[in-house]
């Protein structure tokens, strides 16, 4: 069984591209934050920095992975977004612009 979300092809393309670009911004962001040198900082500043960056590196890393997954989830077949079932279609629909958040989901 296959379900589709009725939105324009251009919207789908742009959404996929933006999720992809967001991933490309976030992936190096967490890496840079994780690898910022503490070698020329005092030990107490270094440990405060460590405590600061630990949760945010994790958060940005997760966000980068999620953005990649979201881009990959928008699988366009022909000029349609096709998903495995209605639940998947609704999930992917929520990755598209809010203005199409109520776009009809139809079974093929």
């Amino acid at each position, binding site marked *: 069984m296959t379900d589709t979300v009725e939105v324009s092809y251009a919207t789908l393309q742009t*959404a996929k591209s*933006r*999720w*992809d*670009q*967001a991933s*490309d*911004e*976030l*992936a*190096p*962001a967490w*890496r*840079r*934050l994780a690898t*910022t*040198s*503490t*070698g*020329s*900082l*005092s*030990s*107490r*500043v270094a440990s*405060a*920095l460590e*405590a*600061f960056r*630990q*949760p*945010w590196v994790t*958060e*940005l890393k997760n*966000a980068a992975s*999620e*953005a990649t997954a*979201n881009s990959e989830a928008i699988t366009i077949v022909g000029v349609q977004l096709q998903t495995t079932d209605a639940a998947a279609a609704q*999930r992917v629909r*929520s*990755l*598209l*612009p*809010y*203005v199409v*958040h109520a776009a009809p989901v139809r079974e093929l």
Partner: protein
Amino acid sequence: MGGVIEVPAHVPGFPALESTPEGAETLATDLRAVAVDVKNAESLLSGWAEPGWQGQARDAQDHALTRFVVRLDDASAALDVAVAAAGRFEERISALSLRRAPIETERISVNADCAELVRQIDAATDDSQEQTFRSRAATLRTRAAKVSGEIAAWVRDYDQAESEFIAALERVDTLREGRIAADTASRPDVDALRAQLRRIENDPRAVAAWWAGLTPAQREALTTDDPALVGNANGIPTRDRDEANRAAVYADIDYLSQRKSDGELTEGEEEQLTNAEKVREQLDKYRDLVDPLTGHELGYVMVYKPGEYGGDGAVAFAFGDPDLADNVAAFVPGFSNTTSSLDGNLNNLKGLYDTSGADHRGSTSTIFWLDYNAPDFSGDPAGIVDGLMVTNPLEAMAGGHHFADFIAGLHATDQGPAAHLTAIGHSYGSTTVGHALLDGAQVDDAILIGSPGQPVANAALFPHVGHVWVGSMDHDPVTLLGESIEPRIDGITAATDTLGFDPAQGTFGGTRFATGDGTLRVEDLLQNHSSYFQGQSLHNMAHIVSGDDGAVTTQDHRHFGNYLTLPELVGAASANSGAHALWDGAVDLVDDVGSTITGLTHALDPRSWL
């Protein structure tokens, strides 16, 4: 001795900076770059989110994209707090580093003087010097107390700088605290700030006044939200432009390198990545040099536009902070210069910085400025058209307008007594400087080197320049391209499509400083054109930049008959070289020169001429 003479005790040493200015600056730059990356991602998606997402509308909870944007906003808010704190920390550590050196020098001096006094007292055999010893001891007690107080204050300030930075990081070191920071009413409204700056960005003095009225948190938030706007706005202080541009350089490299590794880089993005990497190379190259005025790195990125001018990019790089320096020189390069040619140009500007500084007439800043479309040949049709613009003043006119704006920005951000400001243009860049001067750029001195022509026949027509200096080697063929101001009696018709008038002629009204003539050999003619940042010419430019006009050596202006015309130069140089093959080329050149400069550029490869 009649009593005890109190010589102060040894003043103990105090700790070196455990957190260094370099470490603090690297951290601040990295945090800014991370913030730029995150805000870019947020910006890509936020316009598509549920309209009330910032207010946590219930609808948004069902919309994954909106929830994602909210998450990124929390991270942005946390990073804003960290970046503002890191910026403040960096400033304080750099200031503490500058403060430490004279205190340490005085401490060592006091201790040495005390030891010497004790030695002399111990060696005294009578009371004849007792009053002198007492007086010296009293002076030393005062000095010791003062330096001890300064050390205590320094240690306290250092401790406070670290404690405040640590406290700021601790305020946002959980995801929940990031959410709180995002919801804080006092969070800077970057959209409003951006709109305010956009309204006044063409008025550097208004920009400077507006920027000075912002809080540090507002400045940092706008910097990481829109580094291109902040980093390139004339009127924003150099230090802040540099912070914005560095963040943009590293964020661009982060993002574009990721796209490259994903195989998604477009041709335009590839050029931008190359340009960003060229700027980073220079930052790395000069990283260990410290600006004696600020304690920061010596290099400042004042303009960074990696995608500008068909991929050539725009960049300005200063040695020394021009806002604080006593003597400031801004240099405009000419034909064939792009961001890729930064290395050689910065070598020249660093040489000028060092040589001018050696005059010991105040502090110096030298700036490389390339924010115009310097004609540049490349293999594609557009590149060929671009290169042929070397015969046309249009790019110089447009560039001159930009450069005049940049100079106005330097005036707006200048601190303390007005800096002595010099504009320097080389080759086509000298024509660009001429147009900037004609546009009203206000400088104390202008130096035109290797100039193919100026837009006016007399320097007095430049409205706001104190003194115009001209460096033209007689054996630099490019300097012979300018239209003669003096009546021609040699039968050659003055060119009509030149870049302007030859400033080396006496009637132009400039002072021709000594450069030497260069070598009279065909194979060296091009080298002559690129030799102004060497030897006598460099030293004279350095004297002009430092305001030491009396030390500048001069040479005679050009008058008909006292120099070789272009056809004569090429002929004589070819004869000297004994190169018959070259002579054939020279004959072609002589044939062409009577018509247009376009003919000249075809006769010889112009890439290394202008």
